[in-house]
């Protein structure tokens, strides 16, 4: 459903600090399952995820979503695709301080203009599902790491995206919490969502829920194994 064809990303092109973050990466990602992008720091994992998630454009190459070419869409359409297709969990959780857990979860849905009641009920249902029902009205700065990660996960799912992108979802968690998050992600994958994770945590790519591991090195794809 998502296909990359010889995708490259160059930062600061033509300048002395030019950086080739990705070099001619080609791959197909099918619907459903957990795919992990593995590789040492600086190998281009985050960069690849931002390209797939329409947060940035490739310098060269083509990306298609269900056969539709994304790489040449104008910014406005790209945002539109991003809203409806992708949910993001960021490495630092990136919750907005000063707002409650519930408000944070509802944020991605505001621009869609759904009725507020419907939105709130949806957000509460998600929080209940992740065991955060009691925390809905507390401010996000008081959350523990695990709670913050689950809040971020709930926020990523509020618009019911087909693809969930999580950049190093276990980097800030201990192994028990990491397993908990992996279990949640596995659950989502079995429900038919496509889950894309970047990680250099052995706990993640040894987990039973993972379906495919793609290895990156210096911006090149060096391995692709299905489990």
């Amino acid at each position, binding site marked *: 459903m998502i296909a990359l064809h010889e995708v490259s990303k160059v930062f600061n092109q033509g300048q002395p600090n030019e950086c080739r973050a990705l070099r001619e990466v080609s791959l197909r990602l099918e619907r459903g399952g957990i795919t992990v992008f593995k590789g040492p720091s600086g190998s281009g994992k*985050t960069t690849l*995820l*931002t390209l797939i998630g329409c*947060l*940035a454009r490739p310098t060269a190459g083509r990306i298609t979503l269900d056969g539709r070419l994304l790489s040449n869409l104008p910014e*406005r359409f790209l*945002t539109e695709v*991003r*809203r409806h297709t992708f949910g*993001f969990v*960021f*490495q*630092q959780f*990136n919750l*907005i*301080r000063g707002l409650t857990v519930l408000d944070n979860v509802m*944020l*991605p849905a*505001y*621009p869609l203009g759904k009725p507020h009641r419907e939105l709130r009920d949806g957000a509460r249902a998600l929080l209940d599902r992740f065991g955060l029902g009691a925390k809905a009205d507390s401010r996000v700065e008081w959350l523990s790491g695990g709670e913050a990660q689950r809040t971020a996960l709930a*926020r*990523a799912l509020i*618009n019911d995206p087909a693809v969930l992108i999580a*950049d190093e979802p276990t980097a800030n968690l201990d192994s028990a919490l990491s397993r908990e998050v992996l279990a949640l992600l596995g659950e989502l994958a079995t429900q038919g969502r496509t889950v894309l994770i970047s990680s250099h945590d052995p706990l993640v790519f040894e987990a039973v829920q993972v379906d495919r591991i793609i290895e990156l090195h210096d911006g090149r794809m060096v391995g692709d194994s299905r489990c």
Partner: protein
Amino acid sequence: MLLLSQGLRREATLLLQDAPEVVVQKLIAGRHDPLPAAWLDTLRRIRGVSSARGRLWGYYYDPAIKANYTLMVAPERGLAADEIVVGAALARIRQIGVGDYLSLRAADGRPLSLHIVGVLDSASELLGADLLLLSETGFRQLFQLPPEVYTDAVLTVRNPREASTVAGKIALALPASRPILRAEILRTYDAVFHWREGMVFVALGSLLLAFLILAWDKAAGLSAEEKREIGILKAIGWETGDILRMKLWEGTLLSLTAFLVGYLLAWWQVFHGGARLFAPVLKGWAVLYPDFRLTPAVDLQQILVLLAVTVLPYIVATLIPGWRAAIIDPDAAMRG
């Protein structure tokens, strides 16, 4: 401050609405001088003048309370030579009332004891606060004024629209006279208030400027935290337009609230708190401050002006940096 002078201006305008059509003064070397009684006959003979009456009024400095009284002869009250009626503020400050005696020093140095037979009600206190009404005999006795002069003369004119024509004829018949039309008095009051307003405006202008600089500084500089937040919003699907709309709302709400609170505070301090802050400047040098309640006067145009100088710059100041930040690439959120 705008509220206060608006209220004052309205009060004065109302009071002067029933002021005489034309006032005639005698000038000597450009200064106001007592007007000879004989002038009244000359004035009555001018075409268009329906009546002419000599007035007696002046000021009296009371060293006891270090204030000036305005003294006026009120023939229509039929006061006896030793009877007076005093303004409410004067009565309050001297702690005197009906039945008491007020002692003034006459121009020849002798004390003049006057019996208070009435206190003016405080409805029109703004101009009548320090007023003291007395009889013609009492007035002449106090100031040692000869019987054949008046302070000035007031005329009624058959057709008010011809007042300025009549004034022209008066100036011709009595070259040493200065006819003053009611419209001119109104304008003078307006000008005086405008001038005082201006003084305060200069003082407040610097304050306003400081406020603007502060507001701009506050609004224009986006903190790293805010930039991070905008990056996150973009990453989770907000468009530049959505973010600007939010910033606009935020700015509008904040500055409108501030404006409303400020306006209400100003309103309260002018119309209920007696405008303690600016009243001394705007009401002038009368030391006897009247305890007046201005009828609230609100001018829509004034509100708009105030809005324009306070709220608009703040909103603009929030929008520009918001826009600058909102066009950053959404992938920034992916990197700490």
